[in-house]
């Protein structure tokens, strides 16, 4: 028996992907920022000594100083504190709405791709119809019906953001549903549910990771837009969009008031987008060098 040299240890798909991602400095930096934002969102009450909602009119419109690093708003509330609490809204809206969207998108995409035929035609038609709506206008209409509020934001953005996921999943399922291992499962008596959950889902996870990561910044921006328009969270809840909206009349006199929430949105959205790009490079085998 000849000895074969084991030159390379076995590494899983995700381990390889992680290695690729780890070498991408920009993506890693963004991941770090996102981790930081997550920590801020979770531990917001412990990071600041101020109440985000209690007003102190005597302290209003303070420019950034040692007491209030980002200054205070027109009610004398600490802007940094409100940005911390706004982070909770933004991240939760981003993540929860994208989970809803992915779940919906996955099942509709998988059903369309796997069952084919008439099911596919009907579901594809629905996907086409939904994706033809202008997203922001549609979400304004939905929020108008549901009324303002955080849970309604999750639902509105979740219910509207699934079409791109569904399309990608459908394409992926069409590609792999005729593979031998799936045929073997079907021949062996595997139910469609078993095929969908056990064989198709793992293959779709990379796509889901990428669409969620790239969907989150869109959801955050939509939340900010809706809150800016007064259709998002109700006052006094701090949201970056509503903060900018409140600051708008003062943009000439107290620029910092709108500047900091604006920066927070830019940084968060950019981080998610760049991380999403990095993830796509890492997870797509075709892009691996």
């Amino acid at each position, binding site marked *: 028996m000849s000895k074969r040299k084991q030159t390379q240890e076995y590494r899983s798909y995700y381990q390889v992907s992680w290695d690729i991602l780890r070498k991408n400095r920009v993506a890693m930096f963004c991941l770090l920022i996102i981790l930081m934002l997550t920590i801020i969102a979770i531990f917001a009450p412990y990071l600041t000594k101020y109440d985000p*909602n*209690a*007003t102190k*009119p*005597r302290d*209003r*419109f303070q420019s950034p100083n040692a007491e209030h690093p980002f200054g205070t708003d*027109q*009610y*004398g509330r600490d802007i940094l504190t409100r940005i911390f609490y706004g982070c909770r809204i933004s991240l939760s809206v981003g993540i929860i709405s994208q989970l809803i969207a992915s779940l919906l998108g996955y099942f509709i995409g998988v059903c369309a791709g796997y069952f084919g035929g008439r099911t596919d035609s009907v579901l594809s038609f629905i996907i086409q119809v939904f994706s033809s709506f202008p997203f922001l206008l549609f979400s304004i209409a939905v929020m108008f019906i549901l*009324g*303002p509020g955080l849970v309604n934001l999750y639902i509105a953005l979740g219910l509207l953001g699934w079409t791109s996921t569904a399309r990608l999943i459908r394409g992926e399922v069409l590609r792999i549903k005729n593979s031998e291992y799936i045929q073997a499962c079907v021949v062996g008596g595997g139910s469609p549910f078993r095929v969908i959950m056990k064989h198709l889902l793992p293959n779709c996870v990379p796509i889901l990771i990428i669409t969620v990561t790239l969907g989150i910044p869109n959801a955050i921006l939509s939340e900010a837009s809706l809150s800016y328009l*007064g259709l998002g969270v*109700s*006052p*006094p809840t701090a949201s970056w969009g509503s903060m900018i*909206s*409140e600051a708008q*009349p*003062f*943009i*000439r*006199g*107290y620029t910092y008031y709108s500047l900091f929430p604006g920066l927070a949105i830019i940084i968060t959205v950019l981080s998610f987008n760049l991380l999403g790009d990095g993830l796509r490079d890492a997870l797509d085998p075709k892009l691996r060098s």
Partner: protein
Amino acid sequence: MKKLMALLLVLTMAMSVASAFADDAKVLHFGEINPKVGYDPQTNTNSRATTIEECVVEGLYFWNDQNEEIPVLAKDFPTISEDGLVYTFSLREGVYFSNGTELTSEDVKYTFERMFTPATGALSTYMYNMIAGAKEMLAGEATELSGFEIVDKYTFKITLTQPFSCFTKNLGIVYAAIFPKDACEAAGSDWGIGTLVGTGPYILGEHDNSSVTLNKNPNYWGSEPHFDQIIVTLFDDENTKLLAFENGDLDLCQVPTDLYLQYQGTETANKFHIYYPLGTVFLSLNLSEEFNGEKNPLADVKVREAISMAIDRETLVEFIDNGLGTVATGTVNPAQLGFVQREAYPYDPDGAKALLAEAGYPDGVSFTAQIRSTDQPDMVQIQSDLAAAGIDMKLELVDAATWTSLRNAGNAQCEWMGWFPLYADPDNNIYSYFHSSNAPGKSVFYNNPEFDALMDAARISTDDEERGDLYAQADEIMSRQDYACIPLYYPNYVFAAQDYVTNFTVGNLIYQICYDVDFK
């Protein structure tokens, strides 16, 4: 080619003539937020549109900046019959509309009949519907106003269904401006949009979504207008408007109170002037026993008193409103009939908590306020004050249209309200809001027979001293005993005028730019 050259030459000449004219012309540049309504005073009540309308059309009487009523198209104040029902008016003779037709009693009759014709969609009929026959017309049962009698070309009689002490005062509002019959009929639905003809000092010229040009009426019956032209530039944004003022593009404009602070210490602030409108800002409360199928805590007078106690009005006015206001001690404004200087409302969060416990709410109460984005500054501050006393006021941000329909349907629980009378008489703001015949339409549902009786008596009485007394008593009951609303402050407003603008004052909300204002 030659033709084209000739045309160009003519054009250049015409333009140079025009610009020469423009150089010499005395033009007032006024800046205003676009009212986005037409300029028919019967079908809109927008004070921004009113500013423009008052340059073009005139009524029988007029409320000037000193809040005094003066006869305009009427020669004098009417003679009133013993029973207070028949008013006899004499028109000023020889007054011509800017289209050349003479003003006669026919035009006045036409104006009122137009107002009461349902198809017109007039908004302020409640101020004039005590004229006999008005209600029939509004119901579509009649096409002629039975209470209007033309005596001769310049004399007419108006009969009321009941004595109403404010009738002549209501005629001083631009909603009763007199239109020329023939021109208004010819214009049809274009009246107030493309066409508006009146007896006023200026003639409506070119106007679109960005500006309105008002040209001097050369045949104006009164003293000569001060300007050759008034150009009203319409803006969508307050900051842009103020930038235009700073640049010197505007001579005159209003300053929104929230932007007042950022100009403090700048040179522009020296051009700011404060005025005192006649209204009061208050929290409007829904007093019905049930709201949305649940027990309404606001129905309890102790809860309402607790809300009043929990609000730090001084801080609200001094900081959130930049000191532009006076803390209210009642709902009647200091410049109104029936105002009495009372003690300030107490501010006592602990007392508020005790009152709540007494009312059976030891753990505090919760209710929802429906607000528009413009109400947010005051309401966020009040929300924070109330929270400190265990009162949870939720804020529901809605658009203006939803807000209005919620209120009209009685489905609003609490709102921020700046309520302004059109002239200094409480009948116009207190009766129209809190009398039990009107309160449901404002989502208030206040019903105290004692208060109603005082307000009704003041409507009939013609003695202003007695009326003032009645209003003082009514206000005491409503604002200090029943807490039917929570008065907050009497707001002050601000306008900006360049140094060379003279004689400019604002009486109450409406900018009267066509009479006294002049340049140095």
